[in-house]
């Protein structure tokens, strides 16, 4: 989405400043900037080296994947405009985000998990060291004082692990119990708590086995599994509060005396006159006040064909002005704009859809462990009461779900990292389990399944030469622009030597204009290219080339399925998925594409609300729905589906509500589903294997035959097996072309 570039000085206006900067209690100011050029390490390091030289800057934190830079500075020494200038010098356009973006919890989550992990690791190692003395006590005589000392030391070493590092398990268990659910955390919390208490009792009494090192190691291994999964998820990028990024913060209001002032969008009221430059984003819903303009309403319809709006006709916040400038009268404040409504609709849909399913396997496991423990205690109480307690604890240790609880995080992190290498970024790990079960797929059309394509044979020449010559003229303008449509022209011209264009200016949403051989030429959409009224057949689906006197040529654009879409959809259909196309576009165009893609079920002219309702009705019929889209208008239906995927080239609002991000288009979907299914299979194997180990060893523990050191070995070996099994998840074929590491992928 294009935004008019705000000169840095405008950010010192109090209204705007308050929107984006937060003043801390110690007098420092902080803000979060969205930075665009931080994809390669070179760019990152250049930005960081410039920032380090900035005076008055206290600290800065760059989150490369999320493209956010958090800065804290001393307002006495520097200011927000100065910092924006520093970023610009480093070659990076920085845009302040609203203060809502300051409260990102992702980094805090990752830090807290790492701290717990390391504490658990360090103290578990210490507990193991102390326990090894007691192990030797089995094979050689160790005097009772030493034994006593090392039992207490073991308790001391295990205490931080059980009482602090394992807190997430206890918290999750409590919250699960409040919702009447039982998950793996409950099993772990139960086991760790009971064994710790029993070991304390043994230590205080002076006799009986202690298992401090077992539970410390258990907590450490489980925290490691969860940390790896967290890390894999965070590497996938994607923002939680991306809706804030999508909305413009500043706009130009026309004052009573006719001059313009920059104000925060939140300050706009009904009746304000707002000026939007060509290429700018309309900040609020309103009506056109000057002459006819062309606006790009991809936001609502998903279609990028510009629409004409005459004086008095309504405008939607978030659409882009193609030909301008635009003077408008605001009708609704930003909070009630259509964009905000889409965001709210998506959030609401997401909340209704996203309740986690109960982990029934874990619940069964927990109850079985308890039953076994009680049974063996009862048995020994009857047979030899003095051994009842020890036998019960031994059973609890051996039935301990180390491998079982490790199974899910390890499989999830492996699957996520493999998918990451293949260009599918997973933002919610639970999505993979649902993807494995998905049987319905609903696709948006434009941008997801199709892309524009230049029809070289049908170039319509109006005057001024033959089609090849005009194509070369167009290409010499087009090569200055990175817009996908310009690239089509440049590619069509091929390797021919092109005339040189000077004074080239690129207008966002409109096209390119420049000077070739003394002639002023314009290439772009209708309306930008010529002020003359253009016959409507040229308005849609074409790029036009014109000079000062009028139109020269028309380059028709046809919609074509993206590479590999036909194959990917066929692969999905073969796997048993039912396919559907939902589009906001007109019926004939949707029909044409659906025919080519061999999809029988398609719907046209759908509003975001209608797409949402269709998905919901499918879900109530019992289907598990995968939704794929790319535009802001897709955000509600992405949020409502069981699992959703968005294109990385799509809008930020769509990406925020999707579980998967596809960097390579639909091509990776069959692979993603294959890996999700294989991950589920291996997860089941892991769980079953660990259950078999746990329950097979119980009789031995009940008989009192399992000393602590053997219990620890059993726990470690079973966890190792689970991890090695998870490594068996692999992609079926090597990639045909390298997709590159996540560092080098540039979202379009």
């Amino acid at each position, binding site marked *: 989405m294009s935004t008019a570039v705000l000169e840095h000085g405008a950010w010192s206006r109090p209204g705007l400043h308050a929107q984006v900067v937060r003043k801390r209690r110690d007098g420092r100011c902080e803000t979060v900037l969205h930075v665009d050029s931080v994809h390669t*390490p*070179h760019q*990152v*390091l*250049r930005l960081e*080296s*410039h920032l*380090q*030289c900035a005076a008055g800057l206290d600290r800065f*934190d*760059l*989150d*490369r994947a999320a493209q956010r830079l958090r800065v804290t500075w001393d307002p006495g020494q520097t200011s927000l405009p100065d910092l924006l200038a520093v970023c610009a*010098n480093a070659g990076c356009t920085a845009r302040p985000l609203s203060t809502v973006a300051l409260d990102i919890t992702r*980094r805090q989550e*990752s*830090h807290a998990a*790492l*701290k717990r992990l*390391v*504490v658990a690791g*360090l*103290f578990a190692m*210490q507990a193991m*060291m102390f326990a090894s003395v007691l192990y030797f006590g089995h094979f050689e005589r160790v005097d009772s004082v030493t034994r006593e000392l090392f039992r207490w*030391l073991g308790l*001391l*070493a295990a205490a931080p692990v059980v009482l602090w590092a394992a807190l997430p398990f206890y918290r999750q268990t409590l919250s699960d119990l409040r919702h009447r659910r039982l998950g793996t955390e409950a099993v772990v919390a139960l086991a760790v708590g009971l064994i710790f208490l029993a070991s304390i009792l043994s230590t205080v009494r002076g006799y009986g086995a202690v298992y401090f090192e077992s539970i410390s190691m258990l907590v450490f291994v489980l925290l490691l599994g969860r940390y790896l999964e967290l890390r894999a998820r965070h590497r996938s990028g994607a923002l939680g509060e991306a809706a804030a990024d999508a909305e413009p913060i500043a706009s130009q209001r026309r004052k009573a005396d006719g001059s313009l002032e920059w104000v925060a969008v939140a300050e706009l009221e009904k009746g304000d006159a707002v000026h939007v430059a060509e290429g700018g984003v309309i900040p609020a819903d309103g009506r056109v006040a000057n002459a006819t303009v062309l606006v790009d309403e991809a936001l609502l319809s998903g279609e990028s064909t510009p629409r004409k709006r005459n004086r008095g006709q309504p405008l939607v916040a978030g659409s882009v002005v193609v030909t301008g400038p635009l003077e408008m009268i605001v009708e609704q404040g930003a909070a009630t704009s259509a964009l905000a409504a889409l965001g709210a609709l998506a959030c609401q849909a997401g909340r209704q859809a996203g309740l986690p399913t109960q982990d029934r396997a874990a619940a069964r496991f927990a109850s079985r462990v308890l039953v076994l423990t009680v049974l063996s205690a009862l048995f020994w109480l009857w047979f030899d009461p003095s051994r009842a307690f020890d036998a019960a604890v031994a059973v609890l240790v051996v039935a301990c779900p180390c491998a079982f609880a490790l199974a899910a995080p390890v499989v999830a992190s492996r699957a996520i990292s493999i998918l990451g290498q293949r260009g599918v970024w997973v933002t919610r790990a639970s999505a993979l389990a649902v993807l494995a079960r998905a049987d319905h797929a609903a696709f948006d059309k434009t941008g997801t399944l199709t892309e524009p394509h230049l029809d070289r044979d049908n170039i319509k020449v109006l005057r001024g030469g033959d089609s090849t010559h005009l194509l070369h003229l167009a290409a010499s303008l087009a090569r200055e622009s990175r817009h996908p449509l310009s690239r089509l022209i440049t590619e069509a011209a091929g390797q021919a030597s092109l005339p040189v264009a000077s004074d080239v200016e690129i207008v966002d949403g409109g096209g390119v204009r420049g000077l070739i051989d003394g002639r002023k030429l314009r290439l772009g959409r209708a309306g930008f290219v010529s002020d003359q009224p253009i016959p409507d057949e040229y308005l849609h689906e074409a790029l036009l080339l014109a000079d000062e006197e009028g139109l020269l040529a028309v380059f028709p654009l046809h919609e074509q399925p993206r590479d590999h879409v036909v194959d990917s959809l066929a692969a999905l259909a073969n796997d048993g998925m039912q396919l559907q196309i939902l589009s906001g576009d007109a019926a004939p165009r949707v029909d044409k594409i659906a025919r080519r893609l061999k999809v029988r079920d398609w719907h046209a002219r759908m509003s975001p609300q209608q797409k949402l309702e269709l998905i919901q009705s499918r879900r109530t019929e019992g289907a598990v729905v995968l939704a794929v889209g790319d535009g802001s208008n897709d955000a509600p239906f992405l949020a409502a589906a069981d699992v959703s995927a968005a294109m990385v080239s799509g809008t930020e609002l769509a990406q925020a509500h999707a579980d998967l991000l596809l960097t390579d288009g639909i091509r990776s979907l069959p692979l993603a589903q294959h890996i999700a299914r294989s991950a589920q299979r291996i997860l089941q194997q892991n769980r079953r294997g660990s259950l078999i180990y746990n329950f097979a060893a119980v009789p031995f523990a009940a008989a009192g035959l399992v000393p602590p050191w053997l219990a620890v070995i059993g726990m470690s070996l079973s966890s190792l097996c689970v991890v090695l099994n998870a490594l068996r998840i692999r992609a079926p074929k090597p990639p045909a072309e390298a997709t590159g590491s996540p*560092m080098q992928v540039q979202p379009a």
Partner: protein
Amino acid sequence: MNALLILIPVSLLLIVAAAAVFFWAVRNNQFDDLDTPEILPLLDDVDETPEVSEQIKEEAQHDD
């Protein structure tokens, strides 16, 4: 036995110190970006501050 009485508290103190240092490192975001630093030795001009690059530009102009 005397050695143990000294070594055990020392080892516990070392662990606590290690944990404290680690907490400091985490709070200072040392573990957030694990990809960029490995490229650092391979890049030529990353040590340039804005002043240095200005200098280099001026020298280049003088040479012309």
